[in-house]
């Protein structure tokens, strides 16, 4: 290691603010875009599942009314 102590490491030879701000913002930005992509993925999958369930409900409801109507006629 290039530094004598942890304290010296965090101090970064007097450039602590600039170095740590750079690394901090970089990892934050990278984390945020990964998080955003993952959450969008989850949301999309949920929406597709909901849409499929809706279609299913509509189909069964149609089937039911059809049966009811034909049942009444007989």
């Amino acid at each position: 290691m290039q530094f004598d102590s942890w304290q010296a490491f965090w101090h970064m030879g007097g450039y602590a603010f600039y170095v740590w701000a750079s690394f901090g913002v970089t990892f934050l930005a990278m984390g945020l875009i990964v998080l955003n992509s993952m959450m969008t993925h989850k949301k999309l999958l949920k929406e597709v599942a909901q849409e499929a369930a809706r279609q299913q409900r509509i189909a069964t409801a149609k089937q039911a009314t059809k049966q009811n109507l034909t049942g009444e006629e007989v």
Partner: protein
Amino acid sequence: MWKWLHPYAKPERAYQLCSTLQPYFFWPAVLCILVGSVWGLAFAPQDYQQGDSFRIIYIHVPSAILSMSTYVAMAVAALVGIVWQWRTAFMAMIAMAPVGAVVTFIALFTGAAWGKPMWGTWWVWDARLTSELILLFLYLGVMSLYGAFEDKQQAGKAAGVMALVGVVNVPIIHYSVEWWNTLHQGATISKFDKPSIAPEMLWPLLIALLGFALFIAAVTVMRMKNEIIRREYHRPWVKEMVQSAKETNHAV
């Protein structure tokens, strides 16, 4: 010769490919960025002129180089989409734009944080910095132009033309330090002759560069998957895929 490529124009196959590649991009990216950063921050020797402030190089240079490479990749996708009318190529294009913008932002931010202690200013309107800022605006422009169209095939074409026109900016960024007399220093590693950097400093930089490249690839395939689902919303294969994903989740 290029026949093997054709099936991947189909969104379903492209989705499968993205899913397969995702972990192979993501985890090595995390590893490389971690190793590169720790090595660069703690173990690389100090710069004799800049002291410890030079350690910003381990994120600044990878992000700056790759902000340009990502733009070129995005423009190639746009060209393929426009010439061969591949829907999936436009999806790849728009998947790359946000991560490209993030990487460009990182390059600008770390550049400012490095410029302040070394040049005494956060920002100057010199050729290198200004052209990199224009790159950020190009990414944002492609994204917002794509978002502005309801018909996504039209959106792809419009944003694709913008991406292609913007390519002219990439060589300007690269050669700006040679063409104009600027505050920004010249190239360190992307020179054809020997790089002007000590090997103990170069290795962590190359590892970080690889890490950033893999990271961009990982985010691109993630966002590509999202874009495919968004565009293929009502197709049966999407529903089946969601259904089977649910079942495996329940099984676990």
